[in-house]
């Protein structure tokens, strides 16, 4: 598809064509207790900017709940509601159902009100995944955004299923006998949800700042296509990943360019890579890993193992970077 065709497909979504066209007003504004250089704060700012002011937001417990309600103050301009750690999906369904009922009964005017839930990687991908799965099976218009900083960052960095192999967390500090304490590979949430939910027309992965506008446009597409949709963002976390806040943008870019985090969207079952790490020459993962203190205990063999797993993902998987199923094509032949 050419760029023009892509713009045509989502004509109603009013996609941003360049950075100068991005709306100036903020609906998630200054004055939040996030870390310096917090990427997740940008994820909040950007999705609500893309969605516009006629939006209701629900947020599961996590960094972006606690940091944004410091002692009864908030940077949110739009209506916003907190829900339980595992309640992200259910709260979105409840909100959408409530709005539909109020409109049907004529209690509020009929209009398009976006319902967006944000959940962290623990809230959205681990303990809340049942609720998210249920939400994606409904016929309500809602969007679930999983902002993934690869740990339970609010409670000082505990491991989740989204923590990458080998990373230090308070659950997996490096030791003198065992160097690598976190031995699970990162869970593949976006692809899993895309495969398993026939009602869901749009699933995407994104990084807030790279490529520019990509994430905001994905939010616009998800909201315009209708029905339940899901976006997984990778948010470099200066606190838990242990790097200087100045480099959040760099780290996100490197995660994409090394192929560690594949960027794609699955529109009505069709996969589109929004940054094709397989076609472009992948940057060695070492450049991404050695810039983070959580991997400061890595030795040569650890970098090699990490590289090998990422190579496998791009070279051997049936759908590179997305579905780790091998051999189906061979069987058919």
């Amino acid at each position: 598809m050419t760029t023009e065709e892509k713009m045509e497909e989502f004509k109603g979504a009013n996609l941003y064509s360049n950075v100068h066209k991005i709306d100036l007003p903020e609906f998630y504004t200054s004055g939040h207790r996030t870390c310096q250089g917090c990427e997740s704060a940008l994820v909040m700012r950007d999705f609500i900017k893309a969605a516009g002011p006629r939006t209701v937001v629900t947020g599961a417990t996590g960094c972006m709940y606690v940091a944004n309600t410091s002692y009864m103050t908030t940077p949110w301009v739009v209506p916003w509601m907190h829900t339980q750690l595992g309640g992200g999906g259910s709260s979105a369904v409840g909100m959408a159902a409530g709005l539909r009922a109020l409109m049907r009964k004529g209690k509020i005017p009929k209009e398009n009100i976006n319902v967006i839930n944000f959940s962290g990687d623990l809230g959205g991908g681990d303990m809340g995944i049942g609720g998210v799965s249920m939400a994606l099976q409904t016929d309500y218009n809602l969007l679930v955004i999983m902002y993934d900083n690869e740990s339970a960052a609010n409670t000082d960095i505990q491991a989740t299923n989204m923590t990458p192999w080998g990373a230090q967390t308070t659950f997996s500090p490096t030791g003198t006998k065992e160097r690598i304490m976190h031995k699970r590979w990162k869970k593949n949430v976006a692809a899993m949800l895309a495969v398993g939910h026939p009602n869901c027309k749009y699933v995407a992965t994104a990084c807030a700042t790279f490529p520019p506008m990509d994430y905001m446009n994905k939010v616009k597409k998800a909201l315009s296509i209708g029905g339940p949709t899901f976006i997984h963002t990778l948010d470099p976390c200066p606190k838990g990943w242990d790097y200087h806040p100045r480099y959040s943008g760099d780290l996100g870019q490197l995660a994409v360019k090394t192929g560690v985090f594949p960027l794609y969207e699955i529109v009505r079952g069709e996969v589109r890579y929004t940054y094709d790490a397989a076609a472009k020459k992948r940057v060695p993962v070492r450049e991404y890993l050695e810039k983070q203190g959580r991997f400061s205990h890595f030795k040569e063999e650890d970098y090699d193992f990490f590289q090998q797993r990422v190579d496998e993902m791009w070279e051997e998987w049936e759908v590179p970077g997305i579905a780790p199923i091998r051999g189906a094509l061979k069987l058919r032949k």
Partner: protein
Amino acid sequence: MTTVEAPLKNVDVDEEPIKRFEVNYRGIFQKTLAYRITKDLVYIAHSDGKTAFSNGRYSDDPQRNGVPCANFAFFSDGLSEEELEAIASAKMDIDRADIVAVLDDTMVKGLEPWGHYGIRPINEKVVPGGTLLVISRRPPEDLVQFLEKKPFTYNLAILPGEASFAGLWYYRDDNTDVRVLGAVARISPEIISLDKAIAYVRKTYKNDEKVKALEDAYNSTKLSVVSANDGIVWPHRKPVLPAWNEFDEGIVVKAAPREFKMGPRGLGRNLDYKRGTSKTQRPVVRFDICTKCTLCWYECPDECFDPTPDGLYDVNYEYCTGCGRCAEVCPVNECIVMVDELNFKNDDSPWESFKKDPQSYTKMIEEKKGKGRMMPSHVTGKGESMSEVSKPVPFKVERGN
């Protein structure tokens, strides 16, 4: 202000025979460091037969990078552990301290650790005759110009050095922990004595370099006295907390104001919690060479850039956390540079002062920037790279008129 050999004694008659120690530090960056300092102080006091314990300020958790935090340590000569704990523990915050230590000198500009706290002076808790201990390269006069006036005299101790920053997993062991112990021994032998501190450090760390660093700090700590009414009238007001019956039904938090117009401070912002005291450096913008690419505004996670009618982006320093993402993403050489926060006295709009007089604004910021440029390493604490700019980028006349 006068330089003195021995610190002034605490003349305040304390009804409780307790010494209180507070250490202010930058969240996450100095978390491990602050923990080590209060822990070591308690162990040393124990080895001297005193009762002591330490704790962290409850409301600081979860800590965020750069947000000011505090740990406390309490010491007593006669009380039992239970009695000491009953008096000093389980408090959200303490209201006075004999020694207030500051691990990063940019915190003398004020502290705002959480919402509805207001920007409070760093010397707020210092008792008459108490001590404010700052790790700094600056002379005491430089620091006093940021401190709130007190009606009494107190000590200002300066431990010469740079703020030691590290990350959550990577700890930079540059002996700042034992150096603070040395400074405390010098300021208040009643809390820890030098001999006991040396014995403890020798036994615990088994490292002569650490012992030497402690002794050096003991000798090099500079003491001076801040007289009553030295300092400034505090420019920030303390917020009035809403009473229990002023809250809305349920747990309802008032939204931030829905406002937007072009120009400085045109965006509605969270009025009850600003973030300015998180920063150690601020981004300084050369508006004359800016190409209006929007990237600083686009990548700012704290929404502090205000679009102006002429297509530039003003910075709201009240809300800027000094993360440096704008300086990193800016494609123009020398257009956005991070400069030490203590070089600045106010948070006024830089765009307005540029518009008023472009040439003198540019001259002023080039003076503040100086020649040295520091680039932090990716992993905090693993060293910085320093470079020098031979001469400033020439002033671009077209934009200036």
